[in-house]
């Protein structure tokens, strides 16, 4: 169990993130997803005899960016290696990867745990490698189709230290990592489409033990939820096994999300011998200090730094700052709203409560919001200028969401503009006082609470458009006069 009193769960994650380069890692073919099978390939993709790989420079930039974002060390000299195995969707019979000398080593990522604590998770290494094609077994008897479109898509493999101690931490790690990659615009982070994939290494040990237990590797985890469920299942399975006197076998297990269980895919003795050796077709990759510095200067503000700025400079709570920096889209929505003149705290409130509430109900992401940051900013502006009340603003917001119209237009068309004209308010107050002599009497006898009722009546009479502050002042004056 994730919080078993006797056992501790040790988790390390290997993430494969597809990089958003325009062309493939070693040739000029497009990386667009979803094209007709085998239309985005060339002799390099299909590993024809005599062709050679030429490294995509854009990928190296993306790898450096990622390395800097997780505070990793970028090697001055890294090396490609061949990982040899036979499979029909691996045309060359080897995958070009990095083995002994990866481009990035020793990074880290900070998690904000639900307890409010921060936890640092080590990143062992990040290396570049090439994705394989796809084998399709449907619609054909006694054979398979091969689609090589994905062959040559660049990947970063990001390997964490075994620093994670629960499925929740694993989930938080994946969300944080995905958010960073999206901030950097190097990966779209889509787990369903496979552009952000994760394998988990899981072991358990009795609390207090310093040695690591035998680990198993979990594969086929196509959502963060599945990663967490599979880890919990695996930890329970291992603990049960140990408790009943059994031993853990080092193996690779395949998660079945439908059955909520995992099964053994291959044991240690069936493990491939990949016969890694340095790729002779590519010279070692040399990255100069100047190049790293140039990339560092172009690095966007990342979530941790942004959250600190939001709370220190804009006065947001740590919680709001965390929510508003959880994705690049969320942060830029907030920042654009504020640029319209909205007070940061008010903007934060509107986004985290009204907007996210509505989006959640509709099952939408923030970038799909019908209310744009520009319009939300102007809506808040109308409140700040006293043109509408907060209460009316909520009505306007709902209408904006449905009609995608500007707030000013909705307010004008529906006559929702707040009445601050004291003459009009005075008339309304006089009318209410005349219609409610009993309450006036009660007030004058000291039951000042009835003022609230009278204010309500005035608001009702003005259909909510009267400026509540003005109503209050005039009413007070008349009652005490």
């Amino acid at each position, binding site marked *: 169990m994730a919080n078993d009193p006797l056992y501790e769960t040790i988790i390390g994650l290997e993430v494969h993130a597809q990089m958003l380069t325009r062309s493939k890692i070693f040739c000029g073919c497009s990386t667009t997803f979803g094209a007709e099978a085998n239309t985005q390939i060339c002799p390099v993709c299909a590993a*024809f005899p005599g062709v050679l790989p030429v490294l995509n420079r854009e990928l190296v930039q993306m790898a450096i960016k990622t390395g800097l974002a997780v505070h990793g060390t970028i090697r001055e000299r890294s090396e490609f290696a061949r990982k040899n195995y036979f499979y029909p969707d691996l045309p060359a019979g080897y995958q070009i990867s990095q083995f002994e000398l990866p481009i990035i080593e020793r990074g880290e990522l900070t998690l904000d745990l639900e307890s409010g604590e921060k936890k640092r998770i080590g990143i062992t290494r990040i290396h570049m490698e090439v994705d394989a094609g796809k084998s399709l077994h449907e619609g054909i008897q006694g054979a398979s189709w091969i689609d090589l479109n994905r062959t040559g898509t660049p990947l970063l493999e990001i390997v964490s230290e075994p620093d994670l101690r629960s499925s929740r931490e694993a989930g938080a790690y994946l969300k944080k990592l995905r958010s960073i990659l999206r901030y950097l615009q190097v990966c779209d982070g889509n787990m369903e489409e496979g552009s952000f994939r994760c394998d988990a290494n899981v072991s358990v040990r009795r609390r207090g033990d310093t040695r690591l237990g035998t680990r198993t590797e979990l594969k086929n985890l196509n959502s963060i939820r599945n990663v967490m469920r599979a880890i919990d299942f695996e930890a329970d399975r291992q603990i049960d096994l140990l408790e009943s006197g059994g031993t853990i076998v080092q193996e690779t297990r395949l998660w079945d999300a439908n059955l909520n269980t995992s099964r053994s895919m291959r044991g240690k003795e069936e493990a491939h011998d990949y016969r890694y050796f340095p790729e002779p077709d590519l010279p070692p990759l040399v990255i100069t200090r100047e190049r790293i510095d140039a990339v560092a200067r172009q690095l966007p503000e990342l979530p941790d730094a942004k959250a600190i700025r939001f709370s220190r400079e804009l006065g947001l709570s740590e919680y709001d700052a965390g929510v508003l920096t959880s994705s690049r889209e969320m942060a830029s929505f907030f920042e654009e709203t504020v640029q319209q003149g909205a007070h940061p705290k008010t903007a934060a409130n509107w986004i985290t409560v009204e907007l996210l509430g509505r989006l959640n109900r509709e099952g939408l992401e923030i970038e799909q919001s019908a209310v744009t940051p520009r319009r939300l900013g102007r809506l808040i502006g109308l409140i700040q200028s006293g043109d509408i009340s907060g209460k009316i603003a909520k009505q306007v917001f709902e209408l904006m969401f449905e009609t995608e119209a500007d707030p000013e237009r909705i307010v004008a068309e529906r006559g929702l503009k707040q009445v601050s004209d004291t003459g009009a308010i005075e008339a309304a107050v006089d009318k209410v006082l005349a219609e409610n002599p009993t309450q006036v009497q009660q007030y004058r006898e000291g039951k000042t609470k009835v003022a609230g009722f009278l204010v309500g009546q005035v608001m009702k009479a003005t259909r909510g458009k009267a400026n509540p502050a003005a109503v209050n002042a005039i009413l007070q004056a008349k009652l005490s006069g």
Partner: protein
Amino acid sequence: MDPTQITLVQAHAMLRSRQISARELTTAFLERIARINPIINAFITVDGEGAMAAARMADERLAQGTATPMTGIPVGVKDLFCTQHLTTTCGSKMLARFRPPYESTVTRKLKEAGAVILGKTNMDEFAMGSSNETSWFGPVRNPWDIRRIPGGSSGGSAAALAARLALATIGSDTGGSIRQPAALTGTTGLKPTYGRISRFGMIAFASSLDQAGPMAWSAADAAMVLQVIAGHDAMDSTSIRDDVPDYSAHLSTRMEGLRIGIPAEYHPESLNPEIGQALDEAGRVFGALGATLVPVSLPHTRHAIPTYYIIAPAEASSNLARFDGVRFGHRCQDPVDLKDMYTRTRSEGFGAEVKRRIMLGTYVLSSGYYDAYYRKAQKVRRLIADDFHQAFQKVDLLLTPTTPGTAFPLGEKIDDPVAMYLSDLFTINVNLAGLPGISIPCGSDSQGLPIGMQLIAPILKEAPLLSAAHAFQTATSWHQRKPEL
């Protein structure tokens, strides 16, 4: 005058002065190939139609004055350079009907210069062999004695030249595959610095050692071919960026002040004494031309063969994994499942020597053996390169025999791989160190078979290397000897 009996330099002069047309020259070579190739099997594919079309275009260029020194020159190309739409077999059943949809950089450059590609020359299967007996298309015979091998793996390119079936040929050299057959056929063969010529479109044997190079009648002819095919290529990340010098302009007949090193380790007891004598005589020629001979030592020489036979098969085992029957090349009939398809496709498509090297390479890369073999071999490789570097502190060039013996009879070593591997004793080090080396004729044995000597230069010193070979060939006539056919 028989236009097949002239040199490339002479042919170029005749083409330019319109004493002969490219069509006449090409026709003469095609006719000679038709007559002689059935005897020596130097060409796997003869592209008469393509050659004549290229010759017509060459004549137009010659008429328009846009010709290069290679325009209209009939050449043969080893059958591991991919030629678009023209069958490229690599000497293997695996690729017996393979027509590449792309052009190798070497053949593209030749075509752009206006050269006439007569066809594709025979070779050991996947360039693995030293006798040209491992070719799926049958052995090549040595024009000097058709019962003997021409050397390998560029045996077809060497034999075609010796038999005057082309004015120049292109070979490739991984452990001596240009120089060894050049020596055994009395021709001139240059292996340039690793990376001087693009490997793009050249079917890989051992990627860190493979290098294309010209084979010709003389160093002066070889210089003209090298000029066209050398240079950086964006398609090959291991190709060298340095500018290509004018090799022909650097040719000299004088050698004053040149220091030539004679490595002690290259005169073992196993060396054929006639070759030893020929080398001594060559040394005297160099001395007479003004060069100084200096004894040097390359102490790690004896580790070359074991080092090579770890690194080259390791890379080959990986390079040849793509021949799996899925996308191109041979596929077995009616496979029952994936494993059956892999196993039978590769069992049927590859010959014995290729399989032997795939197994060797797979073994040395296996987990538990990698450190003992591959990693150690890489270290020794650096020591071997350091030996040369040290020697070149004292001398400008090195002079060695090219081979320990002259052309041996067909079948003599084919069942004894170790004896076969020892044929490359003097050439392999040069590949391991990435250096340029040239083999030129320097004598003949008691049976009249050619003897070759090797000159080795520092990285990118092809110009002085060719110049020294040219000076020797100006002073001697060994390179002009022709076999009777």
